[in-house]
Each structure stands twice: as structure tokens, then as C-alpha cells.
């Protein structure tokens, strides 16, 4: 009996995944919870954070210069928002065969060098990036916890200037999280930026 319900759950999950796959999530969609391996070898899931109000999920990697440019800013986002209930969860979806620099050992190394204060997870099957509709690194999804669902509230760039942090005018992720914390609607819900295309497995 137990086995049967597990199969049903698996079938349902598969159904959801294959359905939401089309073009990924849009703002307002319910996002799939995930459980992925962190650089400390422990499994991490957003719903593990009982006190969180939401999450800043960042698809990122080691090799991409755009991702590298944002490392400090992502660290700052976590320092600023983890305590108010919006921790950063970074996910590396790249195929390490095509980008050895993005493999698990290098993720550990990079996190240590940069003093990441957030989990840096590996999306080995690439299923989470695919389901979410992440296309590049960095690619941010701000999720709000509504009851026990994860609702997508913002998709896009961290801010409007990758090259020069001092020239940033619009801090999109901060604006979104600030609005959510204040119980307001997010004004800019999607943005676009240049990034490194995610390397899908062949």
C-alpha cells in the first residue's frame, strides 16, 4: 500500500515536472520544492528552513564571468535578507563534463575562497533548473512561502549593471524582497540580463 502511494506520488511529481517544463515558471506559479546536495555533502531543501518567509534562489556557477561579477553581491543579499526571512540558496546546474571548472570539487573551493554564507547546491540531474526555466547564470528566482507552497514572485537579474556595482541604479532583487517583506506587491516582477547559457547535458 505504502509502495503504491509512493508510486502515485512519483507519477504525480513527474506529471507536474513535465507540465511545468514548457518555458519554465512565470511569476505567480507554484514552484517545485527541491532537495539537492550542498557543498558540505548534506542535502538541502528550501522547506528545511522553517522560519523562512521565502527564498532567493540563484542559479549560478563558477566559470561564468557574469556569475563571478555577482558573487559578492549575492553574498551581500544573503547577509542582508537571511535574518529577515529570505535566505539565498545558490544552485549550480551546469554540466561539469563540459565545464570542469563547475564540478563539485571546484564549487567547494570557490565557496571557500569567496566565503559564501549560503548553501551552494549541485543540480546534478539539471531537473530543477529545467523545471524552473533557468536559462543562464546568474538567474534569480525569488520565491515566497505561502502556507507550504513556494510561489514565484520575481524572475530575472540581481540588478541592472553587471560590470560596475557602483553604477547600479535598480536593485531588482532587493526591491522585490523589500516589497514582499512589507506585504506589498512586487513592482518589477521580471527582468532580463545577459548571462552564460546553462550547459545542458548532451
Amino acid at each position, binding site marked *: 500500500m505504502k509502495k503504491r502511494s509512493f508510486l502515485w506520488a512519483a507519477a504525480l511529481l513527474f506529471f507536474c515536472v513535465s507540465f511545468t517544463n514548457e518555458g519554465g515558471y512565470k511569476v505567480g506559479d507554484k514552484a517545485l520544492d527541491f532537495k539537492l546536495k550542498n557543498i558540505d555533502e548534506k542535502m538541502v531543501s528550501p522547506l528545511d528552513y522553517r522560519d523562512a518567509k521565502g527564498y532567493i534562489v540563484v542559479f549560478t556557477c563558477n566559470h561564468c*564571468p557574469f556569475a563571478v561579477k555577482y558573487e559578492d553581491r549575492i553574498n551581500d543579499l544573503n547577509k542582508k535578507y537571511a535574518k529577515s526571512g529570505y535566505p539565498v540558496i545558490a544552485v549550480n546546474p551546469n554540466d561539469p563534463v563540459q565545464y570542469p571548472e563547475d564540478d563539485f570539487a571546484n564549487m567547494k573551493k570557490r565557496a571557500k575562497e569567496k566565503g559564501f554564507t549560503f548553501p551552494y547546491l549541485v543540480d546534478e540531474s539539471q531537473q530543477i533548473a529545467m523545471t524552473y526555466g533557468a*536559462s543562464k547564470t546568474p538567474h534569480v528566482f525569488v520565491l515566497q512561502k505561502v502556507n507550504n507552497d513556494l510561489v514565484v514572485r520575481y524572475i530575472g*537579474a540581481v540588478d*541592472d549593471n553587471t560590470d560596475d556595482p557602483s553604477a547600479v*541604479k*535598480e536593485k531588482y532583487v532587493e526591491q522585490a524582497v523589500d516589497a514582499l517583506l512589507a506585504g506589498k506587491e512586487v513592482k518589477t516582477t521580471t527582468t*532580463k*540580463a*545577459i548571462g552564460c*547559457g546553462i550547459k545542458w547535458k548532451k
Partner: protein
Amino acid sequence: MPSFYTYAFLILSFFLTATKADRVNTITLEQLQSKTIKPETNTLYVINFWATWCKPCVEELPYFETAGKKYPAEEVKILLVSLDFPSEREKVIKFVEKKNLQNEVYMLNAGNPNTWIDKIEPNWDGAIPATLMYKAGSKIFFKEGDLTAAELDSIIQTKK
């Protein structure tokens, strides 16, 4: 009093630097569009967005070079638009020289991508490489992602 040779050297080095820099011009979105969206011509304009740091982009550049050599410019015109950071202009120039790229190379200066990406293609999420083609003023091809040599060749064959 500087000698004739000093002047000659200065003038020569000025021209050398000038031609070097000309190899990679900065281009605005409007300039790029006016160069490629041309209802009055039958030329196939191919725009490839790339960057020196983007591995799949660099891998497919030779395909664009081959195509550029295969067709006369009035039939197929290829523009390689680098999205390297403006602060890394020198790196782009060096790269273009080292690879001896024959297609026109530009660096896009368009400001916040959130405003210009959609103007180029609403379906583009911003990942590179990305390739577009225009003919007679209309966009006839868009792909976000890399192309193989055979893919690029057959697309150009059918669209030109």
C-alpha cells in the same frame, strides 16, 4: 626640437592605433538596427551575439567566419556583436587580432540589458551565444544557444 623621425613615428603609431581600434567599433542598439533592418536590400544580415569569455560562442565563431568568406557581402553580411564588458575592450581587440576575424566585429553599448534585450527579441532570455537573421527589413531567424557548422550553413542556404 623633435626630429623628423620622432614626428614620423608619432604619426605612424597614431595611425596604427587608430586602425587597430577601428577593427572593433562600439555600436548602439539603434546603429545596429539601422545596419541590419533594411527593407530596401535583399542582403541576409546575420547578427551573432558573443563574448570572448563565452566558450560555446568562441567555438562557433569559425563557422561564422567560414560563412562570411563563402558568400559575397551583398548576399550575406555577418556582424559579430561582442557583449564583453566595456572595460574589457582591449581584450576584445586582442582576441579579434589573434583569431584574425574577418567579419565585422562590434561591441554593443546599449546600457541596461533589461531594456534592450526585448527590443532585439522578446523570446531572448539573455543567454549567449544568440543568433538572429534579418532580410528585407524583417527578422527571419532567432536562436538562443549555439549552432553547429552544418546548422548555420543550412540556415544561411535556405534564407539567403
